[in-house]
């Protein structure tokens, strides 16, 4: 057992309001530079939808992630020999059109236009060429199902869905969508690291952050293609690849990443997970439907004395072990089994986790009712509001956001993992709604709770961490002890005072 520590983020999708504050916070700090205009290290997608870059999940086109065949785990992108031949020509790379041509507006037009009948407008200009352009795509072009229905219809996660259900997804009264905020998953088995011919990408041992060494990067861009989440971006101005750094400078100074810190819906949690680095290969080499289980299997119990001893033997600080014990991520992922990695079938062992969202209303039930009564138009279920949730609980497989869709996103299509998570969340919702609105809990609610496999205490804990967490409960950040690392080459106090001043080595193309 080789214990390692990992900083992981958890996205409670039931709470995301799709405001894009996270994306803007990230952009303002990290990618508001020349050559980085088109990059969104954090982006929020409307689902069903095409995402950003458009259709990134289409691995037939983009060739990201790993393929498990005949007991071998191989990059989908290419073998070593193929890689050599594609050094200068890599058709799997996304083009700028797959992202979007970044644009701004020529605001000076507002002041310099000649006098006329109409209001002057600022024309859009490309941030790459500077020429006047007509924007035809953007990082969230299909936001809230806007733009064209073509985007949602082409969502690959709709595969395996009943055609009737598919059609219903875009009906006026049945329409449904959720948000999916995405950052780099700081994977345990990263495709980007494996594909880099110069060895410029590495995963930090202390917190698992995957970083590009800008001094080593030689612009081969294999990582861009090999990352199945398309979360490495090529900066055309510096000739280097860039990616989400999990705001490690903030983490090292005890602050949560900017996206998490600014999150309006407070959907994001940060915490430490302990994992067994020795068992990474075996976790990635199992059939699709067992992937989530095998990945969760290498996440270790921070209370297990054996694990603690092994962690200490690896030189892991007590503060980190304590943070791992208090980690909200550990609770959601391992204790309550409510959260899953995004697209485990890419086999990079993504280390950011998602709590799937609950469906808002019982539209499919209403639709069934409408059909049985032979009526046109909307028919409301003739039951009291308070009983609606029970209805959803009973027929989760017909929930408005199809379970199959969520399973395609989070469990490689394995519905038997998503359903219990949704049931637990619903049971907690029913329980707390009765407690706060009706002043008492009914037998029925307790039965549902038991059926979902929760005790009252657990339900209470889930409820508290979901709805009422304090900042310290959402972000359980370990002490990084940078002073210990700095001590090696410098006086820590002097280092602290100088941090952030100047370039050590400005990035140069070709170097």
């Amino acid at each position, binding site marked *: 057992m080789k214990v390692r520590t990992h900083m992981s983020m958890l996205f409670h999708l039931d709470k995301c309001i799709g405001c894009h504050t996270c994306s803007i916070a990230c952009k303002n700090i990290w990618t508001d530079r020349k050559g980085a205009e088109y990059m969104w290290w954090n982006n929020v997608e409307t689902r069903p939808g095409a995402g950003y870059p458009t259709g990134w999940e*289409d691995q037939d086109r983009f060739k990201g992630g790993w393929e498990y065949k005949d007991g071998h785990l191989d990059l989908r992108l290419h073998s070593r020999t193929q890689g050599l031949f594609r050094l200068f020509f890599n058709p*799997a790379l996304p083009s700028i059109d797959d992202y979007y041509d970044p644009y701004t507006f020529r605001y000076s037009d507002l002041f310099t236009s000649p006098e006329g009948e109409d209001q002057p407008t600022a024309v859009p200009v490309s941030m790459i060429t500077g020429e006047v352009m007509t924007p035809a795509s953007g990082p969230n072009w299909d936001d809230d199902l806007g733009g064209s229905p073509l985007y949602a219809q*082409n969502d690959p996660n709709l595969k395996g869905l009943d055609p009737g259900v598919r059609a219903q997804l875009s009906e006026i009264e049945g329409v449904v969508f959720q948000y999916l905020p995405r950052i780099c998953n700081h994977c345990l088995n990263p495709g980007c690291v494996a594909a880099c011919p110069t060895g410029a990408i590495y995963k930090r041992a202390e917190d698992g952050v995957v970083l590009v060494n800008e001094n080593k990067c030689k612009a081969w861009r294999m990582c861009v293609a090999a990352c199945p989440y398309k979360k490495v971006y090529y900066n055309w101005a510096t000739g280097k690849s860039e990616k989400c750094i999990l705001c490690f400078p903030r983490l090292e100074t005890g602050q949560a990443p900017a996206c998490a810190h600014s999150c309006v819906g407070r959907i994001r949690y940060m915490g430490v997970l302990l994992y067994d680095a020795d068992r990474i290969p075996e976790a990635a080499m199992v059939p699709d439907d067992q992937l989530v289980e095998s990945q969760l299997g290498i996440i270790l119990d921070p209370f297990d004395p054996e694990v603690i001893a092994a962690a200490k033997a690896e030189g892991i600080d007590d503060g980190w072990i304590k943070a791992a014990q208090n980690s909200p991520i550990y609770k959601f992922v391992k204790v309550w089994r409510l959260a899953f990695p995004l697209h485990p079938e890419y086999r990079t062992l993504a280390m950011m986790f998602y709590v799937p969202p609950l469906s808002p209303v019982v539209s499919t039930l209403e639709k069934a009712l409408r059909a049985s009564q032979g009526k046109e138009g909307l028919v409301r279920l003739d039951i009291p509001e308070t009983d609606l949730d029970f209805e959803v609980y009973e027929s989760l497989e017909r929930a408005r956001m199809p379970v199959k869709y969520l399973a395609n996103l989070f469990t490689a299509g394995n519905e038997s993992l998503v359903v219990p998570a949704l049931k637990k969340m619903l049971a907690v919702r029913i329980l707390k709604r009765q407690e706060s609105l009706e002043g008492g809990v009914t037998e029925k609610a307790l039965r549902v709770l038991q059926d979902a496999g929760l005790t009252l205490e657990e339900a209470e804990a889930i409820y508290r961490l979901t709805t009422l967490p304090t900042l310290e409960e959402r972000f359980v950040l370990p002490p990084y002890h940078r002073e210990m690392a700095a001590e090696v080459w410098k006086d820590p106090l002097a280092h602290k005072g100088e941090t952030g001043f100047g370039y050590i080595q400005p990035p140069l193309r070709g170097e």
Partner: protein
Amino acid sequence: MKGKRFFPLALLLALSVALAQDGKALYGQYCAACHGPEAQGIPGAIPPLAGNPRVQEEAYVVKAVREGISGPLEVGGVSYSGVMPPMPQVSEAQARAIAQYLKGLSGAQAEAPAPAPQVQGDPALGRALYLGQKALQNGGAPCQACHTVAGVGFLGGGSLGRDLTDAAKRLGGEAGLSALLQNPAFPVMREAYKGRPLTEAEAAALAAFLVQVSNEVPRPASLYLGRYLVAGMVFLSILLLYQAILWQLRPKSLAERIQSQLRR
């Protein structure tokens, strides 16, 4: 007392004998290939060293060995215009030992013996060996890998070694070449053929071939440049065509599909 005074002298004598003996071995190793085992040279190609007044001057010999000589030279009424490659691998002390040995030779060996009879080479076989159509017996690389002879081969040969078109004129005709080929003095060539020397017959055949080509009218070097440009262009266009086809065949991305559908 007496013995004591003579001791350094005796030592010096012993040393000089040792040096001369050493010099002989070194001569055999570095010089004999071209200048002959008896330092007799090859008339018209490689100057003799025995009886050559120049070798009396130690500094000259050391410089010649370590830095090489080129250009016209007259020894005993015969003029030579070859190139002797530098041999920096011979240390200064070793070069001095060689000079010592040569000095001793010059008096005794006033008359050089006639050059050893040469094996008659077959130029056709030489051409085959040069082009690599016929393998060298000991596994050495064919000459064309590194050298060019004007007019031989569609794109000429390699450019690592010197152009051999007029090698016969530079390196002492058939006799000089065949000696040189069996024991090359050029450092790179020596390394390349270490452990896989040319046989006498092969050397003779190649020498005959080189003499033959040196007498032909050489083709201009620009011929190869033109051919190279054309071949390069053909290769490049095949490559570009291949890439263009690959690019066309790649699966269309969703962005492209949606855009084209929206345009319709």
